[in-house]
């Protein structure tokens, strides 16, 4: 009993982190039918930007609490600058190609961005420990836990709710759902699909960067962090059903809990467990837990 609480807490914290990254991935896939490998480098870019911005903020002797705002700013900057750059500069010429070819296109973008990051920030690790240590610890089952993880959970919850609200309750969101349902019909009804794609990719990129920015204080930011993340996010998104926001949340929770239980009882099997969950879900439900209904066209 005493170990269930820490496992659940660890799992939910990890799930929050996963959800932040996977939500953007599943959103982009749902709308644009692109499984975006470059999502991993957008995540890395968010982490690097956060290190630079928050580092400059703290280095300038400004109030430490403001570094959280810098993390957010870093994510928004990356999302609104680099996201549109990729979509307008490259992806918009590729629509209509095979899904697997689009994976390769974004894989190429990923390779390019990995080197860009190295050229800009160098190959040494960057550290940003302040925002992590700042909120302090609390006790759970006799063990100290960082409050930062609670911040992470709150952020993921807020992001998830905001996304759901924007999708199902606003006019823009309903237009988006129409585009997902039937792209050609939406165009015929006068929806500017090109603009919808641009906005979707920018939002997705921001979510990836947000995940990176808020991870930066907990890790050493080094080249290659994007590689690790992307397949994890793939696993989550595929478990939930490509293109489903609720699926991404459930997938993240499932993976998070399984992972934290595995880490507790059988630490060697950590990576194994995550992909085993993915394989088992896909075997039982080939299109994931909440696969979007295929619209029937006559």
């Amino acid at each position, binding site marked *: 009993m005493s170990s269930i609480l820490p496992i659940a807490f660890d799992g939910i914290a990890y799930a929050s982190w996963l959800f932040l990254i996977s939500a953007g991935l599943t959103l982009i896939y749902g709308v644009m039918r692109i*499984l975006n490998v470059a999502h991993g480098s957008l995540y890395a870019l968010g982490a690097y930007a956060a290190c630079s911005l928050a580092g400059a903020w703290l280095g300038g002797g400004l109030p430490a609490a403001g570094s959280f705002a810098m993390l957010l700013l870093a994510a928004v900057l990356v999302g609104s600058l680099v996201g549109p750059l990729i979509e307008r500069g*490259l992806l918009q*010429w*590729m629509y209509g*190609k095979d*899904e*697997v*070819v689009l*994976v*390769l*296109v974004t*894989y*190429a*973008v*990923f*390779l*390019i961005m*990995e*080197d*860009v990051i*190295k*050229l800009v920030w160098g190959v040494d690790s960057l550290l940003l420990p302040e925002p992590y240590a700042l909120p302090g610890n609390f006790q759970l089952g006799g063990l100290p836990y960082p409050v930062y993880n609670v911040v992470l959970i709150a952020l993921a919850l807020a992001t998830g709710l905001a996304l759901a609200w924007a999708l199902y309750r606003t006019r823009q969101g309903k237009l988006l759902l129409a585009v997902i349902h039937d792209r050609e019909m939406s165009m015929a009804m006068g929806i500017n699909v090109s603009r919808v794609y641009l906005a979707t990719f920018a939002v997705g990129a921001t979510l990836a960067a947000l995940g990176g920015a808020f991870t930066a204080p907990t890790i050493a930011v080094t080249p290659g962090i994007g*590689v690790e993340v992307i*397949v994890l996010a*793939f*696993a989550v998104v*595929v478990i939930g059903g*490509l293109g489903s926001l609720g699926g991404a949340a459930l997938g993240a929770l499932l993976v998070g809990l399984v992972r934290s239980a595995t880490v507790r009882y059988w630490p*060697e*099997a*950590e*990576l*194994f467990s*995550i*992909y*085993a969950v*993915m*394989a088992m879900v*896909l*075997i039982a439900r*080939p*299109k994931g837990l909440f696969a979007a209904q295929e619209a029937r066209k006559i």
Partner: protein
Amino acid sequence: MKAAIVAIASLVALTGLALLSPQWLVFMAMLALAKGVVVLGLLVLMRTGLVSFGQGLYFGIGAYAAALLSHHLHVADAAVMLLAGAAAAGLVAALLGLLLARYRDIFFAMLSLAFSMILYGVLVKSAALGSTDGFNLHARTFFGVALASGAERRVFLIAGAVCAVVAALLVHRLLGGHWGRLATGVRDNELRVAYLGASPYRVVYVNYLIAGALAGLGGALAALAVGHVDPEMTYWTTSGEFVFIAILGGIQSILAPFVAATIFEALRMIASQYAPNVWQMSLGLAMLTIIMFLPAGLWTLAERRRRSA
């Protein structure tokens, strides 16, 4: 007839290369050959319209099977290692294929990726197999004949060339006939193939099996070339590399995988020599250019020239 001439010519050329060129070139040619064999398998699979992002699984199984023979069973015969690599990978492909042959498109790609990442997770954490560092292997004989030190790689290259040429000829025969047309049929319209009385599941399953065994053979070749195996061979970026080479070459010709793999290895060597900081970037840019302007791969260039001539 034409295929036989090309096969004999490549064998002669590769043997000459193995005997006469400096060690570094032999090493590079060996790696290109190993990757070419893996991509040849990918080509078989792609004829059915499926792309596996998890060939690293079989590449790794082939390499580790070869390496484990010398490590645990003290079998250090290169020929046995190559056979074991292909057989082990083929066996696993025969099992996983039962499941994977049900999937198409992106789900096939992702599930194959998941399986390769499971193996990666296992290898990284298993101390007995050297975790992230991997371990070395030593081939000391070839068909029972002791190998002179310094000449092993040259022998391996000739052995690799024989394997590759035989594999390419078999694949050429297979895809040039009834089976190849069935595979293309599955890619274009699966339902129609089923109506005509053939089983798309069986076509996909057998092609997956072939692709797995070939990737295992390639893995064993690479392990012999490098003399070392590590989990990186099963990581998804390795699988991505194979898909990249396949797209680079195109899927029209049996020679394309080998030509593309050679170009890839040469590019990689030049780039890491002269532009070590941006070699991934060069790779990415090359990839985008090919997808944009040569959607059927480099082979379209050769085809175009032939047609205009």
